[in-house]
């Protein structure tokens, strides 16, 4: 029996969470997937498929919910088990996944100075050629809705790398036209120096978790409400 905290942690880390019937009592068991709780983004066709699970320990035949990392993808799919619970704990797992996600959002929400729904405009490079440092760029962000921060913000500037940079690996590159919920922090001093004018309204996207799809607005608003109450 996995306790709740461990389950939340497991749910937050495992790229694959699915339920299915173990068909063979072997270290690499064939599992008929009947319930997909989480798979890597963009992956379809997992439900109803038969996958190979490299088990931590052999399991008796039966239904389980697995937490797993990808192992191989080819003509078939194999995953490596991180853990499992009984097959009838799907709802508990889903709740753990939601809690894990909420925790992450809450953490990022708290770290942000400005959380808004909006769209990025044209990305303009602040460095020329292939710089030896971070390829800073700036893009205007048209704010549709403010979830945290001064409510009357309509336009802010976002500073970030023009493209993925090994000198600032967590920061996602600025993508023109991207409409999302942005968790913005203060821009690094180095970026502000590159920007020159307009520093006051310039922010930064620190990690890829700080960009969330608009579909999660309601979910994030709930978190924001909780955070405001807590604050």
């Amino acid at each position: 029996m996995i306790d709740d905290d461990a389950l939340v942690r497991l749910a937050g880390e495992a790229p694959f969470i699915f339920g299915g019937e173990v068909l063979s009592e072997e270290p690499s068991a064939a599992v008929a997937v009947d319930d997909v709780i989480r798979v890597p983004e963009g992956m379809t066709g997992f439900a109803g498929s038969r996958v190979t699970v490299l088990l931590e320990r052999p399991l008796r035949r039966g239904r389980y919910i697995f937490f797993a990392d990808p192992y191989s993808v080819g003509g078939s799919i194999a995953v490596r088990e991180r853990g499992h619970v009984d097959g009838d704990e799907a709802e508990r797992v889903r709740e753990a996944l939601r809690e894990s996600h909420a925790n992450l959002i809450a953490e990022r929400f708290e770290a942000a100075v400005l959380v808004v729904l909006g769209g990025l405009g044209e990305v303009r490079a602040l460095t020329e050629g292939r710089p030896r440092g971070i390829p800073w760029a700036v893009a205007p962000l048209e704010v549709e809705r403010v979830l945290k921060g001064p409510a009357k913000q309509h336009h802010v500037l976002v500073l970030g790398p023009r493209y993925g940079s090994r000198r600032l690996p967590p920061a996602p590159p600025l993508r023109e036209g991207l409409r999302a919920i942005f968790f913005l922090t203060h821009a690094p001093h180095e970026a502000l120096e590159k920007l020159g004018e307009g520093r006051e309204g310039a922010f930064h996207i620190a990690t890829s978790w700080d960009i969330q799809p608009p579909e999660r607005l309601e979910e994030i608003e709930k978190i924001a409400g909780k955070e405001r109450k807590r604050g």
Partner: protein
Amino acid sequence: MTKILVVNMIPNNWSDEQNQDCEPCISVNPANPDEIMATAFTFDNPAGTSAISPAMTGAWAPIFYSNDGGISWSLHFVLPSGAGAVLPTFDVTARFGASGANVYSGLISSVSGSIIINRAANALTHQTTLVTRSGDQPFAETFFNGGQDLLYVGYNGSTTHATIDQSPDAGAGVPTFNAISVDARNSNNGPKTRTAIHASGTVYGAFYSLNTDGTWDVVVVKDTNWGASLPPYQALIGGDGKAGVVVAPSISVDASGTEDANFGHDRRGWELAIAVDPNDEKRVYLVYNTGTSAADYTLHLVRSTDGGATWSADARSIVVAKNPGVAINSLGHVGFAYQQVVGPTGSSNWVTIFEHSHDDFATFDSHTLCSTSSSVPTPVSSMATYIGDYIKVQAAGESFYGVFSASNVPAAANFPSGIHFQRNVDMGAGHLLGNDGVTVVPPSIDPFFFKVTVTSGGVATAIADSGNFGQVCLGSFHDELLTIDNNGPGLLTITNIVSSSPEFEAPSVLSYPLLVSSGGWIGVMLRFRPGSFGLKAAVITIFSGDPAGPHKIRVTGNCAPPRLSLILADSGNFGKVCVGAFKDEPLILNNSGKCTLTVTGIASTSPEFLSPGVISYPLSVGPGDALPVPIRFEPTSFGPKSAVITVFSNDPAGPRKVRVTGDAPAGKLTITGSSIFGGVPNCRREQRILTLCNTGDCNLHVSHVGFKHKCKCYRLINNPFPAVLRPGSCLSLVIQYFANERVARGCELVIHSDDPGEPVRIIEVVAYTLWDCCNCGCKDHKQGCGCCECCDEEEEDKE
């Protein structure tokens, strides 16, 4: 001729994938060429960069893996990454350990931004980090030596600049690494540092060096001891006395930091690839670029045949192109791949070309592997590169293996050399389909594997007498023509001809490979030069591209030895030879073998049998010939003689001996006559004659004849001795007796000679006086029958 296989590497169960899987690299397991792995900017989820966030779902980025020679591929999630990372990794290359037992990678972590050099037991296992560095574009190469994996990771270090980071035993429990700065001139370099390794221990490194005036030098450094020389990488010295030869001095390279619409929506800068001939560590190919804009951006393929000291003019110049890959296969053929922008901006294509040449690009065949739009898909700006900053071509045996990234629009026309998709596609409609085989998936950049199999000729040989060179004498040789026919469909590339024996010499070819067109032939001369006697055999092996493997020819020959026979008359008996005389007999040296006999000396065990006084040896006796040499018997003493004459030669049977004999007889003294006088009347003189004869075969030296004691009544009259008596000759000796003795006394006549039978002969001389006064006639005659002393006689005797 070549056979080409091109495979889209995205697995079938990843058909939903729509990311920009660019900047690929490939590694073929040297122990098993069917096992291949590749890397690219491939996420652990099909959405990847198309998603808002996160980019990476989990902590492990995939490699592409094939165990069937590249026909099918799967993804294995083994490279260190991190959930939420914006890229699976930054620059990444992975290599099979040259032992085939380990897998290594050099990559920039998308979590830390550092270079991490990693290892796993195989391609399917999570890799663990061995060492962490700071820098750009790690590019790993491996080699196997002495049971150990040598790992070389070239990169542009943050503080070490152009760097070769190497481990002499990367498979060790805790391997050591040594980051070596290889630019002796400047401290700013292009991102790429590339290495090429040869089994001799020669390691080449290539990099761009930024001069103070803003121009660039393309530099090649070399080490001849696996990079472990002290100091390392200084085997090439430039004209300025500094390590490294500047291949392209003061060139202009103006890199674009991000995508350039005029350059197929990709960025430009510092193209570099290097390869060394596995059969010749001095033959090196290098690709670099010049150019300050898309229009003049040019790849230059150059060659060195002297180990990097000097470089040719461009063997190939390719404009508006990037991502060179170059490799040299076991036949010495060169494979050169690149990606070129063809067409005007806005409607250009990225065209991936593979060129193959067996003659250093005097001629070559060119194959378009892929030609797809540079605008479909729309570039993802978050990577700054569209198809990536490098590709890789590797040779394994005679085949070339490579990988490139390009648009994956599934249309046959896009892949003139053929294409095999694993992911779901509708080739007729030109659509990618998702995992369900129905949903249309937008085009994206995919990695493509290619394999170029050089279709080789076949070896057939002909040689006279089934390879039997016949009889050849030591010190000489015999040549036979070996005809090599190409009975295969393609060009036959002969990379070496070797003999299992130094006595059968393979042709001394100035420069391999030898090329034989299909249906053609060449003749090469084989030489049998025996180094010793006896029957000889060897195997001549022709190494070529013949798929049947090395061709072997058995050759034989004989090196029969000379044979010395000795012939001497009368079984070596010289007969009788007197002391002081000599006799010569010819000793016949006969060579009954088939090769020249060399006589190096003749010796005798006795000085009385003399070997010839040859001024200088050796004497040569041709096959079947005979040479008489005189042997002299010259005795110095009497009696039978013998000796052994030994003849030294190159007859492998050893020295030959012949026994010689002879006899040295002496003279023999024979005496006739009487020395008995009987009674002689007093005062009378009587004479007797003795005749001394030599009845022997040789001279008799009679050295003295005289009385042993004083005998005053006896005299030798006109004694002729000493004298030499010839065989059969005689000399007489007259003995006179003067009878006047009162008492009869005998006397002994002594004869000395060299008659060995009786060198001293004593003859009794007997006489007595008959006293009769009537006979007395002495002057001092006394009255009566007294003594008649004859003093005169005594006086005469005294004389």
